[in-house]
């Protein structure tokens, strides 16, 4: 499946969530999808810009889309749901307030570009079936709960992807790599991502709830598709433990890492070392030589 | 023979009203029962439903010299015959667009929805429309002869 699409890593994925970026790149490479990073991309403005005026956020995000269009792409993929929202918002604002938007952007833009998340790419364009057929090291016997976070499927008219209350895409991808997928009631609950820095009491409470539920349903790990969710659950797990007097040690893996590993990609290249809660024990159960995987089959 | 209206003093003009029996005709009755004063130019023709209203009636009236034509029926959804006024609305809209082609000011034609209990509304409709027709003045008549029957095919 030779395919070339524009790639927007976003700020998180080039900083705190660098392993999400790495794993996305190597996984796409292994799946025959060529990612072309949007040249000289800038920050999409995220929530802060949006809170001033969706127009400002739209113009900031729009610059990236305009560059991608100029490079001849009709699809942009980003791993980060927050960037996804920012980029999609640009198209929406473009449709609603075309003149204001173009005045601010001062670049040619047609608004025809399609924006998808890496989850959507894996689920809709690649498909669980394809992935299942290529699994080398299945996660048999391991329970991974799918955590979508609040942004990927909501609001439904905007997301145009999966079910807002009971999404299944991540579930099916996890099942495709052989994992057990427990019914996880907090699939789409908000983790408080926006307040990682400013209101970390709130984050502590919400993430604690999520981890508690994950443990109750017997999870060995949580599979995520959002760098902010990942950070809250992984980096802040120690804070949560202090706040709740708990002893969680729950690995939080990106879906790209899970699939990549199952496909037989070296964990080093997937950046699992960068995770704060080490998934090594889990990964070792799946493949004994997890540190020195033979990648020859990837071709 | 000339009609009475034609020989009247200048200030009275000829307005023909086509009112459905169930709603607007009753609304005009209600306005009368309540003694709501109205201009005297209007003459009402009773039809069962605005769905009966052939745009040709309005066209003929205007061509033959009426100064204004008013059509009124039940509010959409309240039609005694369920859907008659939906058809009427569509036809009246087409008629409005068509009138300029035969040199008639669209301001001479109006349709409204007035129920049997809306005497006050009826008074207002009559007042407004009569004033509008007076502003437009007497119908100057047609400059060119047009084939009225042929115009039918436009509908």
């Amino acid at each position, binding site marked *: 499946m030779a395919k070339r699409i524009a790639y927007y890593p976003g700020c998180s994925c080039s900083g705190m969530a*660098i392993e999400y970026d790495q794993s996305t790149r190597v996984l796409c490479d292994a799946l025959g999808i060529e990612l072309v990073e949007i040249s000289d991309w800038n920050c999409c403005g995220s929530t802060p810009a949006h809170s001033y*005026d969706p*127009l400002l956020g739209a113009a900031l995000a729009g*610059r990236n889309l305009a560059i991608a269009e100029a490079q001849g792409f009709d699809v942009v993929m980003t791993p980060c749901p927050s960037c996804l929202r920012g980029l999609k918002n640009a198209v929406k604002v473009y449709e609603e307030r075309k003149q204001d938007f173009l005045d601010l952007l*001062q670049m040619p833009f047609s608004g025809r570009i399609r924006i998808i998340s890496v989850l959507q790419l894996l689920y809709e364009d690649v498909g669980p079936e394809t992935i299942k057929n290529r699994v080398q090291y299945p996660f048999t016997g391991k329970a991974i709960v799918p955590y979508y976070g609040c942004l990927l499927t*909501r609001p439904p008219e905007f997301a145009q992807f999966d079910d807002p209350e009971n999404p299944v895409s991540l579930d099916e991808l996890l099942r495709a790599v052989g994992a057990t997928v427990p019914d996880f009631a907090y699939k789409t609950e908000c983790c408080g991502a926006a*307040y990682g820095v400013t209101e970390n009491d709130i984050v502590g409470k919400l993430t604690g709830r999520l981890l508690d539920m994950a443990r109750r349903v017997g999870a060995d790990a949580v599979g995520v598709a959002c760098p902010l969710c990942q950070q809250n659950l992984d980096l802040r797990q120690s804070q949560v433990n202090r706040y709740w007097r708990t002893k969680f040690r729950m690995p939080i893996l990106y879906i790209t890492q899970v699939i990549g590993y199952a496909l037989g990609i070296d964990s080093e290249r997937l950046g699992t070392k*960068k995770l*704060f809660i080490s998934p090594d024990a889990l990964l070792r159960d799946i493949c004994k030589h997890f540190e020195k995987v033979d990648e020859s089959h990837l071709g | 023979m000339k009609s009475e209206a034609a020989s009247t003093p200048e200030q009275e003009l000829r307005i023909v009203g086509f009112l459905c029996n169930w709603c607007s005709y009753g609304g005009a009755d209600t306005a009368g029962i309540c003694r709501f004063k109205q201009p005297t130019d209007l003459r009402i023709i009773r039809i069962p439903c605005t769905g009966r209203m052939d745009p040709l009636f309005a066209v003929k009236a205007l061509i033959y010299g009426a100064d204004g034509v008013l059509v009124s029926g039940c509010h959409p959804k309240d039609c005694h015959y369920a859907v008659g006024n939906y058809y009427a609305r569509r036809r009246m809209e087409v008629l409005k667009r068509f009138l300029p082609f035969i040199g008639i000011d669209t301001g001479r034609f109006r349709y409204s929805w007035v129920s049997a209990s809306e005497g006050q509304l009826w008074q207002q409709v009559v007042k407004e429309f009569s004033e509008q027709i007076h502003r437009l003045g007497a119908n100057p008549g047609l400059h060119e002869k047009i084939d009225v029957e042929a115009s039918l095919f436009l509908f």
Partner: protein
Amino acid sequence: MKRLHLLSLQQTCDKDFIHRVEKESGQQVSKCYQCGNCSASCNYTYVYDYPVNQIMRLIQLGQKDVVLQARSVWLCANCQACSTRCPCNIDVARVMESLRIISVEEGMVSKKKIKLFYDEFLSSVKKHGRVFETGLIAAYNIKALKPFTDADLGARVLKKGKLELHPHNIKGRKDVAEIFNRFEAYSKNRDID
């Protein structure tokens, strides 16, 4: 929260405010019938001063000052749970977002620190073209007078090699800054209108 005791409906109702919220958000607030589903679904209700259904109610009543100064407005994480479940098809999250925008315009921001974080974030973007996370957090923590928050995490992040010590300046950062400048000019013009 400032508890309301007696509300004189006519005297405190600001109709222009209702229109402004409706225009900014594109939502008709009178559609809200106060079912409470938004508050039931909102993960932040417990930290709000007014749960989001009450925010909707206060807007219906034109209570501009109470609404704009509410803590809830800035604690909303824009998670969309409310919008997804509102039986009246109101995009409640969009209304909350509009309130944030209006509260900035009116100088009535309740959670100054969140606003501060946003300001720092944007100035980082304006300067470098991308967010310089390390610089942002440092600047924020100093200005918010809580320099040691998350200090425990800092060391671990550093160890994982995840903290950049230098900002990445993109080539087009002038273009990005221009967008900000044009936006500021645009906002000023709009205020005059």
